[in-house]
């Protein structure tokens, strides 16, 4: 019988919200990064990962292209670049 709707986090894969990006996507330059983690902290999706300098990356399956990471990066080491049409996103 179909009981109450409970979900275990491990069973939830989430929506592939990367497909929502229509115009811009973040591009990590990996040049001046100081590993301050501000980008990671500010991302509303939680789709940035990384620990070491110049080694932060974005999971484009989920990134909505909001640009907050680029905005907050103190080293301007993230750029918002044009989303190529028909590019991945739903990877």
């Amino acid at each position: 019988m179909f009981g109450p709707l409970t979900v275990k986090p491990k069973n939830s894969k989430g929506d592939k919200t990367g497909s929502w990006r229509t115009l811009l996507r973040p591009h990590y330059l990996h040049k001046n990064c100081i590993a301050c983690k501000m980008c990671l902290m500010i991302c509303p999706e939680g789709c940035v990962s990384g620990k070491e300098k110049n080694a932060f990356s974005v999971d484009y399956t989920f990134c909505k292209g909001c640009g907050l990471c680029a905005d907050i990066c103190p080293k301007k080491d993230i750029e918002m670049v044009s989303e190529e049409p028909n590019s991945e996103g739903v990877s």
Partner: protein
Amino acid sequence: MKEIRIHARAGQGAITTASLLGFSYFNEGKYPYAFPNFGAARMGAPMNAFVRVDKDPVRLRSQIYEPDYVIIVDPTLLRGYNCFSGLKEDGVAIINGKEDLELPKLKAKQSLFVVPANEIALRNIGRPLGNTALIGAFAAATGELKLDNLIEVIKKRFSGKAQEGNIKAVKEGFEYVKKGIK
């Protein structure tokens, strides 16, 4: 009875499109029923709107699964899922997109129009809101609505600069398809 399904992302004006179509049908003496398929959608999430229209008041309240016409406001939606699902054998689809858009294969009698509605809008309205251009294209592609009537509707709905721009957009959308058909 004709059925139109509009595909867009929340925030891209699918409901406006549906209502503009509805107004236009209304002006031509028809009985449109325009309605959204609201999800709990946030800006950016895919959603639908529908128009069902007939010469008598529409009583059927279900969603539209086998549309005569499909309007796709955002071509990125084509990536995700099948916007043409249930499109009638001789159905017509209008897609907002660049000419080089990669398109799925349609059935023999179905026809498909790709209209650079966002470009048209950008040029005329200053923002990439392709809805009015798409309506123009819809009118041209389907013969369902008269251009003059569309312009009347735009005039009522918008004022000032927006009115001007949208009239141009609707015309350009119309012309773009007309040209292509020719």
